Structure formats: structure tokens, C-alpha cells
């Protein structure tokens, strides 16, 4: 059974067609990258996968079920682009709060928060308020908040956006480690090097339509492109839909 299946999914916001007959599938334990220019429909696709937005037409299955089902939603975590942390909660408290929200009891939530603080290398900043954390540290806290429920499917929109080189690399290593643990990962990013490093499969979306999908090497060979950037630019230039 595939982790995620989208079949002919369209989404319309009033007169605006955000997604047009998009279809792809992601296997369990696979890392999948969704790339496309701004406004292409990446965020809408991610929201549909998480069950936060319903498609206007088409079929969406996550682990074989409707993602709006609360049992399935408890196995998914999302990190939106530009997400912020709670300014008046410490790094530890933010993670602990999400652990409680995800249904963990008090002692399990405390243990989980401690564990994630250690894994994310946040020990030095565990008692700092969100407002005082740097952008990179905020991103780490947010990833911690996403991991409290030990999700089977992790959806990350621009996970390393705004991070310095070292922090971005640490996050990428963490994501690869999560995939090696068997978690399914969907990443949306503008960073082609990151995509090449993390993703086993990619999909290029442009103006709401899926224009290419497959393993990066195979796509490069099929389209005769030397790099993902060249492939991306070729497939998303004006007029190509």
C-alpha cells in the first residue's frame, strides 16, 4: 500500500484553479520532493495531503484512507513555510505543548520533549523564549514540534528556508535519518541542491499542473538536462504547462 496517492486532484478557489488534475503516488519510507515556481500549487498540494484542505475533485488517500480522518491525521505532521514559534514559550515548552496536544500524557510528553531537545541539539537554548531564538533555532523547534507524535508522514514546506549553511545541513541530515527510520517525507523547496541531497523522487508542478514526476536521475536523462535547476527552468518557463 502506498503512503500517499493523489488521483486527478483539482482544487479551485473561487475562479482560480490552483490545482489541475494532479496525480502522483509516494511509497512508504520514500522521500518525495515537490518543486515549482511561486504560486504553482505546492502548498495547496501539501495541505490537501494533510487533510487541511479538501480537493474540489479527485481522490486523495494517505495510508489507504481519507486524510481528513482523525486517525490518519494523528500520523501526519506538517511544517508550513514561514511558520513561527510561540514567542512567550521556551523551546522546551513549545515541544512539550505539542506533545500534550497530540495526546501524550504528562510524563510521556516531558520525556518526548527532553528526547527531541537532545536530538535537535537544543540543550543550550531549551529555556530560551521563542522570541529570542534565531531563525535557524526556531526552525529546529518547529521540527521538534512536528516530531512529537512520531509521525509516519512528515510534510515540510521549505524546511531549511532562511537557515545558515551549517544549520541547513544539520536539518538535511536529520531528514535523511528520519527517512532511514522508515518515515515517509514530502518536502517542498526551491533549493535544488537540497532536493538532490534529500529526495528519492521528485515532482515538478507548474501553474497547478504536474509537468514531470520520477527519480531525479531518470528525469535528467529523459529531458537531457545537466542539472535539476536546468530541468526545472526548462519545464517551468513561460508558456510551458
Amino acid at each position: 500500500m502506498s503512503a500517499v496517492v493523489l488521483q486527478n486532484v483539482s482544487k479551485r478557489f473561487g475562479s482560480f484553479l490552483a490545482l489541475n488534475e494532479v496525480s502522483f503516488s509516494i511509497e512508504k519510507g520514500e522521500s518525495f520532493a515537490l518543486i515549482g515556481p511561486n504560486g504553482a500549487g505546492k502548498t495547496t498540494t501539501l495541505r490537501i495531503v494533510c487533510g487541511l484542505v479538501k480537493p474540489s475533485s479527485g481522490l486523495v488517500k494517505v495510508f489507504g484512507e481519507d486524510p481528513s480522518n482523525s486517525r490518519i491525521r494523528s500520523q501526519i505532521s506538517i511544517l508550513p513555510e514561514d511558520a513561527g514559534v510561540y514567542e512567550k514559550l521556551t523551546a522546551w515548552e513549545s515541544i512539550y505543548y505539542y506533545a500534550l496536544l497530540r495526546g501524550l500524557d504528562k510524563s510521556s510528553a516531558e520525556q518526548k520533549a527532553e528526547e527531541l531537545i537532545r536530538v535537535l541539539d537544543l540543550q543550550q537554548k531549551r529555556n530560551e523564549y521563542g522570541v529570542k531564538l534565531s531563525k535557524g533555532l526556531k526552525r529546529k523547534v518547529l521540527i521538534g514540534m512536528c516530531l512529537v507524535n512520531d509521525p509516519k508522514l512528515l510534510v515540510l514546506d521549505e524546511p531549511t528556508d532562511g537557515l545558515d549553511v551549517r544549520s541547513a545541513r544539520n536539518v538535511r541530515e536529520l531528514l535523511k535519518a528520519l527517512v532511514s527510520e522508515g518515515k515517509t517525507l514530502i518536502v517542498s523547496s526551491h533549493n535544488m541542491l537540497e532536493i538532490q541531497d534529500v529526495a528519492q523522487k521528485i515532482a515538478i508542478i507548474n501553474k497547478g499542473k504536474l509537468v514531470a514526476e520520477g527519480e531525479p536521475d531518470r528525469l535528467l536523462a529523459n529531458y537531457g538536462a545537466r542539472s535539476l535547476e536546468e530541468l526545472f527552468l526548462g519545464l517551468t518557463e513561460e508558456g510551458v504547462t
Partner: protein
Amino acid sequence: MSTWLVVFKKDLKELFRNRKALLMVTVLPLLLFSAMGVLSNYSLTKTPTVIAVVNEDTGYANTNYGAKLISLIQNLGSSVDVLILNEPNFSLATKLVQNGEANLALEIPSNFSLALNHTALTTSIVLFVKPGDAKSQLANQIVSTALSQISSQVAYERVKRLAGQNATNIINPIRVLVYVPKPTGFFGTTASSPYSGLLPALIVLLSVETNIGLIVDSLVGEKERKTLEMLLLATPSRLGLITGKTLAVSVVSVLSAIATIVGLFLEVSLTFSGLAASITPQSLRVSPLAALLIVLVLALTVGTTQLITAVLSAYATNTKEANASIGIVMSLPLISMYPLLFSSLYSLPQAAQYFMYLLPFTYSYLLLYGILIGPVSLFDLIYAIALIAYLFFLLWLTVKLYGRESVITGGGSTFWFKRPRLPQSSHHNSEDMTFVTGQKRNAKAHFLILLARMNFDHVTIRKLVIKPNLCPSKLYRASPNSCVFKGFKKFRVNAFYDVHHG
């Protein structure tokens, strides 16, 4: 732990950690009002109320009513300064008042004691008051109280001389027995001051108007900080989320409302402290049970207000946009409570009464009226049920609105004003667009055209007006290249546009 409790604890923790804001909403009203009271009191008592007296009375037959009047005036206020002018010049006394050196000028005539000792004679006292001066008014009140005491005493003695022992009955042919039930309010509250009638409306106004926008920061702030999406996915119960957030902001709002109300009462009591009882407004005494019930009504009122704000700002994408809804929320209690500051609900016209019953604040007012002034009847139970029902309805509505995906995707409009949508087309990049409308003056069609102009740059937009009252199919046939608008018949579209490929 339940979702509402987790959210409530976390939000309350965040609110209490914002020390500056917390001090502003709780301690500041207390300090500010107290400081105002102390300053007013200082102005009324510590700086003496100066009464310039021209006393021409030298007494008559071992009595000196002039001196007695001065002594009474001095005893009525601890800080009354009687300035007796050496020369009998009233115009000099009035000049002192005009210059601000005295607050009131009083002239006691030379025949004052003589006239009061003779049954057939009357006398006149002349007062000079400075208009618009609070201390001058206070001085006037003090002198009037003293004169009234002397006048009553003299009248009694005159009648006694004429009629013997029946003087009291002659002076007071009608005895007025004022029955003030103790306690006046059902729950041991005494609010017998002539101004107590405006207390319920004042308390509702103060509780509603303070921190009206806290929920905006709590709910729309999650959107603005981009934490809402994660939160909605992580929270199993939308009801728990909204309940927890509303409860947390209501706790702070109630604290703030209590601080404001207590501060206001402090101001009044501090202002008049040290002044004679006859010139001080009666204080409000509240039993512990009444205080508890007042706080409960405050909590219900504050919760209702926060939820109305939440409903109105549900589609706002940022706090700035959401704050627009606050104006509407603030005007509702103002509209409903303002007339009640001057008259009772039942003295309003019938239509106004019906309107008032539509607003939740009216039920808060009626409940507070029962608690503070009484009497309490079974109707109060109905009012309490109505207020609670209102609260639950608003909670249900907020949960419903926050369950819609447009909360995340940004509907871009507020609840009370839904932006008309452009008819659907897949040709947005076309260079030419014609709007077809059945009416020349159609506000919605104009608005759609305006929206199109704002949304599509480099597109020529034309308006085509065709015969009015055309049925949709005829309208469509009149312009066969036009795009089809879904739900055309259902929503009675005001305009649709025709796209010509450039």
C-alpha cells in the same frame, strides 16, 4: 489531558508572561483610578476650600447666628478655611473668588441675628459662586447645608413660641417614613445611592469595553504567526481549541474588568474621603455571594464578547484586518447600554425593548440589576439561561467557522462582508475582457469590474449592458463566448464576463 485544558493552560501561561500587557490591563486601571481619586481628594480636602465671609452681624440678645453659621461651616468640612474679611466689603470678597483666592463669597447681613430672633422678620444671605468650579460648588453645598440646619432650628423655635409643644407637628404635618429594605439587593447588596440605577449598565460597559481584542491576538495571531496550520493538524478537537483559547482570554479580561470597576469605586470613595457624610455619596456594600455572582455574570459577558469578536474576525488574515471587527463589537454594548444609563429598560419604547432583547448584553444588565438593586425573580433565571445559550451558540458558530478551510487558505474577507467572486474562467491571462450585466446600475457588477481591474493588469476591461431582466440562458446566448459560471441560477449572478483571446 483534554485539548481545552492543554490550550487553556498554555494560552494563560503566555498571557501571564506578557507582564507589561498584564500590568497595563490589571494594575494600571487600579493605580490610575486611585491616583485620580487621591488627586481629586487632595484638591477637595488638602487644599482648603476657602469661603470668604463678610460678617456684619454683631448678634442680638445674647445670640449670634452669624458666628454660629461660621462655626457650622467650619465643622462640616475638615479643610474648610473661613476667611473673615476685616472690612465689610462684599465686592472685595467677590474679587477674591474671581481671582481664585477664595472659592465662595458669603455675606451675612447686620440684621441676621435680629431677624432670626423675631418671628415676623426674614433676612437674606448673599452667596457669590464661581461658575464651572468644582470647589466652588462644594463650598456652596457646605454653606447650604449649614444654613438649612440653622433655618430648621429657627423655624422650630418660632413655631414653639407661637404654638407651644405642638411645634414639631406644625412644622412637619406629613411624616415621611422611607423604607429601605436591608439588604436592598437580594444577595446582601446595598446600592441605595440615587446613582445606583446606572451601576448595572456601567459595569456591563466597563467589562465589555476592556480588552475586547484579546481573542483577536489569540486566534488571528496564530494565523499571523503561521502557527495555525500546525495547530489545527495537531489538535484533535476544534471545540477544545476554541474553548481553551476563549477561557484563557476571558480570565484576563475578567481580571481587567474587575480592576477597572474596583478602580472606579476606589476613585469615588477616595475622592470623598474626609468629607462630611451629608455631602458624600453613599457607598456600595457588596456581600461575598453578590460579589461572586457579579464576577460570574462578568465572565459570561466577557466570554460572549470575545466570541462575537472571534466570529466577526474569523476570515481575517491578520490582526490589523481583524481589529476592524472590534469597532462593531464595541458599538453593540455602547448602543444597548447607553440609554440604560439614564432610564430603565422598561421605560424605553416597545420596539427598542425588543431590539435590546436581541443583544446578550441586555441579559447581563438585567442580571446585574437583580443582584445589585433587586428584586430577584424567576425571570433572572431565564436571563441567565438566555446569556448562557447565547454563549454556547457563539461557541458553536466559532467552531464551525474555524472548521472551514478558508481559515487557513485565507478567504480574504470578513464574516459580515463576503467579497463577491469573479465568475470562473481559465483565461485569466487574456488581454480583453467584457463584463455583461443585465442592469446599468448594478452595485455588485461594478464591484466585480473593480475587482477585475485590481486583479488583472494589462487587461482591457469593458462593460456591456444588455436588456434588463434577461433570464440567465438568454444572457448566455447573447454572448456565446462567455464563460460559464457554476451555480449561475442558484446565486443569481450579477454579472459575468466574456473573454476574447488577444
